[in-house]
């Protein structure tokens, strides 16, 4: 097993040198999310050795760890205290790190009810493009001192800073969970998910796969019995496995080389008329589409619905893969990038060309 180590100053030196020379850096943790974002070239900056849990105080509901810490190590430590990362991040491989997870901003099936990766970030220590080590946020639940830079890092794909240490809010694991299945076509599944989401039910996941709507309920045993009585449906035996496979994209739906799109839309958006295969998650708010349809068609459909589309896997990774930004917003992105990384050396182009 690799030992815990603080290589912050080493990473700082590398960033400083790169800034001075204008060398592009390609930030890497466990390499499980290389598929995501745009294809970039650059000198590897290996954050994977910067690892170790720095503090976990169960009664404070906070964990702080170095960015290179394997996600699995964090989840094991939390599970020992009957706690969890409530945004349920997918790992996409055993070597996934905390830093990569936060840089990508991935959240799992629990997201609509518990919150996203960025919702759970309390603080971060980062290296900006000047090679300065900066701390933002902290280890407490409520903190409004200064601009919220730590949450800005989530989903920025390392283009604004190299994540060094991250503090996250953690939550107790639910006492019990139960998954229920309902045979429903997609449009009726969308309606049902949204109808139940309006009611005070202990929902923690809702996805439509094939011709089945799966609902997960979480909480005290008594609450689950009451909810089951209201919802009906068929109990699913290995519910945990189902949600893990969905989250890790290990279901049959995700197989094959056809491009995989992620559409983030208002949850009650009617079933969308784009060619391809669909899988609906997040109670309707996250829709996966396997298709060869042109990017512009997909982006237009997502935008019309009031959302956005991401080319999640496959397709042309040299072109833009994230939803195009309107001009003033794109300009703001460039100026923000400039304010953190004026030499443009941190993962340049990973998020959008020119960032």
């Amino acid at each position, binding site marked *: 097993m690799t030992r815990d180590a603080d290589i912050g100053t080493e990473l700082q030196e590398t960033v400083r040198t790169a800034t001075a020379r204008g060398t592009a850096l390609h930030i890497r943790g466990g390499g499980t999310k290389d598929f995501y974002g745009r294809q970039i070239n650059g000198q590897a900056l290996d954050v994977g050795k910067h690892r170790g849990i720095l503090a976990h105080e169960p009664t404070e509901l906070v964990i702080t760890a170095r960015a290179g810490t394997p996600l699995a190590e964090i989840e094991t430590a939390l599970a020992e205290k009957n706690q969890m990362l409530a945004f349920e991040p997918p790992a996409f491989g055993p070597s996934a790190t905390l830093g990569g997870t936060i840089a990508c901003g991935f959240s799992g099936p629990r997201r609509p009810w518990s919150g996203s990766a960025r919702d759970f970030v309390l603080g971060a220590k980062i290296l900006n493009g000047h090679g300065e080590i900066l701390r933002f946020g902290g280890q407490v639940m*409520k903190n409004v001192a200064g601009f919220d830079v730590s949450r800005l890092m989530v989903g920025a794909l390392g283009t604004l800073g190299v994540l060094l240490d991250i503090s996250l809010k953690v939550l107790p694991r639910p006492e019990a969970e139960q998954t229920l299945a309902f045979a429903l076509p997609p449009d009726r599944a969308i309606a049902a998910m949204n109808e139940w989401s309006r009611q005070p039910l202990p929902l923690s996941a809702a996805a439509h796969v094939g011709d089945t709507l799966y609902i997960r309920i979480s909480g005290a045993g008594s609450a689950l019995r009451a909810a089951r009585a209201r919802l009906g449906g068929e109990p699913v035996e290995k519910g945990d496995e189902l949600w893990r496979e969905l989250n890790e994209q290990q279901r049959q739906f995700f197989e094959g080389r056809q491009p995989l799109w992620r559409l983030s839309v208002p949850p009650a958006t009617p079933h969308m008329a784009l060619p391809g295969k669909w899988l609906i998650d997040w109670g309707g708010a996250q829709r996966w589409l396997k298709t060869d349809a042109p990017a512009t068609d997909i982006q237009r459909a997502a935008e019309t619905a009031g959302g956005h589309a991401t080319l999640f896997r496959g397709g042309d990774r040299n072109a833009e893969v994230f939803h195009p930004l309107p001009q003033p917003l794109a300009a703001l992105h460039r100026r923000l990038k400039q304010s953190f990384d004026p030499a443009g050396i941190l993962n340049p182009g990973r998020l959008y060309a020119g960032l």
Partner: protein
Amino acid sequence: MGTPLQERTPAPHGNQAALLAALRALLPREALLVSEEDKRPYECDGLSAYRRLPGLVALPENIEQVRQILRACREHGVPVVTRGAGTGLSGGALPHPEGVLLSLSKLARILEIDPVNRTATVEPGVRNLAISEAAAPHGLYYAPDPSSQIACSIGGNVAENAGGVHCLKYGLTVHNVVGLKFLTVDGELITLGGKALDIPGYDLLALLTGSEGMLGVIVEVTVKLLPKPERAQVVLAAFDSVEKAGDAVAVIIASGFIPGGLEMMDNPAIRAAEDYVKVGYPVEAAAILLCELDGTDVEVSDGIARVRELLLNQGATEVRTAKDEAERLRMWAGRKSAFPAVGRLAPDYYCMDGTIPRKHLATVLRRIGELSREHGLPVANVFHAGDGNLHPLILYDANKPGDLERTEELGGRILELCVEVGGTITGEHGVGMEKINQMCVQFAQEELTQFHALRHAFDPDDILNPGKAVPTLARCAEFGRMHVHGGKLPFPDLERF
């Protein structure tokens, strides 16, 4: 070391007379206030100890007018301070003497309640509570509930990232906003998100939330609505020491409960509240805890039974469960009136807003007691115990010479104490003008420099709420008490005053 009020105002930017002429051409007569008498109501926000008359007050009625005001101010180099309902507690809306006070109180329409997607889209001047009222017929509500919720506006809530008593379970404003429209300093309208759960690109929703009016002017907000829990029930527990109450909080959390509300009051706060609203609080207790569980009916019943047992095991001298909804509301009434109740004990009170890791509560309260005696000013404490957000209330008399200065000094010391134990100077009220000096304690030179660089990406000429929230390095050098990390003195390259 000056108090914020004694600070030299930044050099006046630009030409006010020319701006006034320009605005007169753009806006109806009643939308501009220029006489001292008309401007007086805008001289302070909820932090009334700090007052200053604005150059002029603009009251636009629509986004187009806001855009024109911004463009004119930008062109003439005149600062803009945006104001919502003026209930902020950190002087974030303190006017700039040469600037425009931009009041968004007339942008107050509820644009849409979408019960199916569970969102509300509103203009920034809509009151926090009005959103929940509008959503109530659908069985939905807006979760963040700052204690000023009957008056405070959602635009101000977003600008300050306001909290409330339900944050541990339901989050702050940042966790409940899904869409924003804001105007840049150039008057460009930018839309972020809508009813989907996330946005493409950088998370500007998170960045704009809590940015204290320094990055843009928020003109439309879309928030998440949640189904109203089937039932809420509260338990009141009395303790003969603050330590025991603090330990009980840790045990409740460690047992897997995330209470909807978990509040603590110390003895001076208990007595003040009981004197004021007579809700039957145990006035001999060193501390009381209010623990509210919400959820489905059975879940709450089971939970309350377990929490009662935990509290008794932790040495509570008394544990009461509200018999009915009326008693539940009475138990909360004492807590919710704590600020005005404490306010009756002295001519003025000053509310602090630090957050600390909960385990340090006993130490922090003891040190606050010592500082209180040292400064000769009484302090009562109310505490969002679940999330570590502490509100010490300092009692003083603004008419007594030197009292305000001693209060500010004591307040500053308390905030520095919060930083020292690993906490922060503000949990939910914002930095504004009030805590700007303490920002020098919490952040290092490079971090403040990064904040300024970030700000300049939005507002290169410091037009929007200048001089608030992020201190200049010169100010920090002058302030004297500075961020020390790893034993190194910061600002080595700056002259000392």
